[in-house]
């Protein structure tokens, strides 16, 4: 029997999993049964003080008060970073903590299906970079799950609502309002490709805040009426919390409900009538706080609200009519319906898993895209892009570079990710050396650098010396810290510093060009054309080279002026040379030299275009 693949929503606060059964996604229930989180369970791992077995999910939450130092929450926020959790003398990486959560899911799934489960599709936020995606994949591997695909959470949610089946191109707004965070994503869907246009959000805004506001209101009403403050009575507060949560859920379906708690304080009962309008007025300020995130997402995607074709709601609080209405009003369209917003991401992951396993028939092959541009560092700290942002993956692209100095026997390939033209302003994902390049003049060796991104967005970079066939490679390890905020900041910086960056890049480019031209001209004058140019011409060139060298550390204009002067002199010489010359080899040589002028370390060969072909 073909192996089944499960879909996993590995969340910051809660996680859930689903599998295709009878052609439809079904949530895999947590072994502890239904909790306040529905069928999902808290993404919490704990190591009990008494050294007993590690706890995952609700039991881990249950003991958190007594053992906070050994209880880990929100490990997802540390994925792809160097963070280490030191627990009872042992060290754990974030991916190990996530792996414990995945192991529990694997166990629950096996109990639910009666089959052995070894493969999974895992979702990640759209803004996750490659380090974070790799860390997620590693977590799967540690948990004994082969990660068949890593997909973006908003993409999964769209799949759950069947948006991939629409035969039209569309712009989708995914409004993911969870217990503790808000994520807004705008995606473009066309030809089976979901392309993330923008992401924004608020990491300190969620449904839990609403519950607290409602509780405060009811508590205050009781104090006003009976003169008793319940705050210090733990038993009373616990009953109040439960009743408020129930009332909030009920008010999504009815217009009014009663909170009745007999004997809440001695013989006094708490009786509060709660209408939907009242609840709305209590939470409205919180809901309004979602507006800037929607506006920013639209602004970043450079589209107006009216251009959005579909709205997808994710997360428990979006069940509330006020939240639905708020999004509808903000965009001017009704949101998609028919799927429980709390289960949408896990459902979507299961749909993708079903397509991969052949359980779900689909005409489309879902493709994902690279979240940020990938490239390598070239001479002068300039980033040379190899795979542009939003390229559909899996993909493979290459470019050929050369050396910057004579007899250079090694090159360092520094793999960078980000939207800025200078390496220093982006994030380095890792670097490696290609050694044993046979000594040769600068510009002669040909080093082909190939980027392979698999379907999970994991990058393999290979550098190959085309002369010797020797190669070196790197698989990007999770070594760099790049938080959600940092990714956002990188994107913002790219826009903010566009002008400044261009200047920096221009300076480096012109300096590289000048150095390369000096090298070529010196070689030409001192070796190749030594006997063919006059002494006067020789002096003119040498002087011009000297002048250019003197201004290399100056600004762009000065370098440009002196470079143009040198070019003019050289043009004069070569024009005269060709007038007098007859043999074609001279012409060939000129062509070759021009080619090497354009090379720097490592810089793309003009003739060698990157292979645009994408693997399937």
């Amino acid at each position, binding site marked *: *029997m*073909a192996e089944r693949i499960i879909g996993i929503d590995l969340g910051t606060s809660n996680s859930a999993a689903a599998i295709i*059964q*009878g052609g439809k996604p*079904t949530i895999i*229930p947590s072994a*502890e*049964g*239904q909790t306040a989180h529905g069928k999902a369970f808290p993404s919490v791992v*704990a190591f*009990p003080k*008494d050294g007993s077995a590690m*706890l995952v999910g*609700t*039991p*881990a*939450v*249950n*003991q*958190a*008060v*007594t053992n906070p130092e050994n209880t880990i929450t929100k490990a997802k926020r540390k994925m792809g970073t160097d963070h280490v959790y030191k627990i009872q003398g042992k060290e754990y990486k974030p991916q190990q903590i996530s792996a414990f959560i995945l192991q529990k899911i694997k166990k629950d799934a096996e109990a*639910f*299906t*009666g*089959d052995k489960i070894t493969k999974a599709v895992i979702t990640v936020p759209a803004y996750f970079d490659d380090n974070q995606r790799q860390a997620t994949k590693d977590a799967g591997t540690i948990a004994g799950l082969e990660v068949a695909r890593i997909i973006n959470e908003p993409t999964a949610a769209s799949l759950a609502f069947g948006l991939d089946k629409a035969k039209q191109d569309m712009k989708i707004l995914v409004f993911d309002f969870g217990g503790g965070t808000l994520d807004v994503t705008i995606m473009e869907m066309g030809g089976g490709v979901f392309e993330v246009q923008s992401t924004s959000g608020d990491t300190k805004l969620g449904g839990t805040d609403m519950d607290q506001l409602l509780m405060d209101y009811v508590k205050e009403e009781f104090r006003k009426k009976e003169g008793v403050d319940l705050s210090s009575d*733990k*038993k009373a507060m*616990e*009953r109040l919390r*439960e009743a408020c949560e129930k009332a909030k859920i009920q008010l999504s379906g009815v217009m009014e409900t009663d909170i009745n708690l*007999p*004997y809440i304080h*001695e*013989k006094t009962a708490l009786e509060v009538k709660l209408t939907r309008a009242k609840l709305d007025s209590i939470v409205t300020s919180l809901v309004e706080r979602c507006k800037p995130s929607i506006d920013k997402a639209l602004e970043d995607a450079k589209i107006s609200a009216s251009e959005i074709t579909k709205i997808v709601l994710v997360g428990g609080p979006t069940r509330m009519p006020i939240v639905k209405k708020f999004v509808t009003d903000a965009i001017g369209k009704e949101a998609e319906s028919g799927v429980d917003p709390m289960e949408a991401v896990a459902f979507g992951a299961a749909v993708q898993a079903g397509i991969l396993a052949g*359980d779900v028939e689909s005409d489309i092959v879902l493709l994902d895209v690279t979240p940020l541009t990938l490239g390598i560092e070239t001479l002068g700290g300039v980033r040379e892009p190899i795979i542009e942002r939003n390229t559909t993956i899996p993909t493979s692209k290459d470019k050929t570079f050369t050396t910057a100095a004579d007899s250079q026997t090694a090159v360092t390939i520094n793999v960078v990710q980000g939207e800025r033209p200078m390496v220093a302003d982006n994030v380095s994902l890792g670097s490696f050396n290609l050694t044993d390049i046979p000594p040769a003049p600068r510009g002669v060796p040909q080093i082909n650098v190939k980027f392979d991104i698999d379907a999970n967005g994991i990058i393999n970079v290979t550098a190959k010396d085309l002369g010797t066939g020797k190669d070196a490679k790197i698989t990007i390890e999770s070594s760099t810290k790049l938080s959600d905020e940092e990714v956002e900041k990188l994107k913002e910086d790219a826009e903010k510093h566009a002008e400044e960056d261009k200047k920096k890049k221009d300076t480096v480019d012109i300096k590289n060009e000048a150095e390369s031209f000096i090298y070529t001209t010196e070689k030409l004058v001192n070796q190749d054309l030594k006997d063919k140019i006059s002494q006067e011409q020789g002096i003119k060139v040498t002087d011009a080279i000297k002048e250019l060298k003197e201004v290399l550390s100056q600004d762009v204009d000065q370098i440009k002026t002196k470079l143009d002067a040198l070019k003019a002199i050289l043009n004069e010489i070569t024009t005269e040379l060709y007038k007098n010359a007859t043999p074609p080899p001279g012409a060939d040589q000129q062509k070759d030299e021009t080619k090497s002028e354009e090379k720097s370390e490592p810089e793309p060969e003009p003739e060698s275009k990157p292979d645009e072909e994408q693997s399937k």
Partner: protein
Amino acid sequence: MVENEENDEIFLGKDEQNNSKQSKVDETPIDYEQRIDELNDLLEKEKQKSLRLLADYQNLEKQTVDRINAREDKIILNFLTVYEDFVRAKNIYEKEGGNVDNLNSIIKNMESILEHYEVKPIEVEGRKFDPKFHEVVQEIEDNDHEEGTIVKEIAKGYIIRNEIMKYSKVCVSKKIIKE
């Protein structure tokens, strides 16, 4: 491929009027083998499909029971809040020296309903805290009990059909550290 082309040519040479490839396929023994392989593949696929469907059906049967139980659990959970209110009322009137006989018999009736549905309260008194049954809401400094002993119950927890239905919320003891 080359071979096929040659066969085509030979075949066409024999009977130029009949250019149907189908007749060639029918007559060539090697194509029978291919067809058998294809049919075997198809059979295997269908076999896998029906096995999968059978498994899905069995799971559905199990899940239907679970779903009915889940619905029942929800009703029982609501019933439990009313039951607890009756217990609270009884305790207060009992403390005041009132007659609680009738309240007691109502509570007993309710408890027999709970028993029927295999609902049992989670024991907490004097027990050691266990995260599989209890949720700690507070630690209380206390040298009279071993650390981690439940010293107060904030909200009752319940087990149904030997599974957790609601965790009990508790306060546990914590040793006082003297400087």
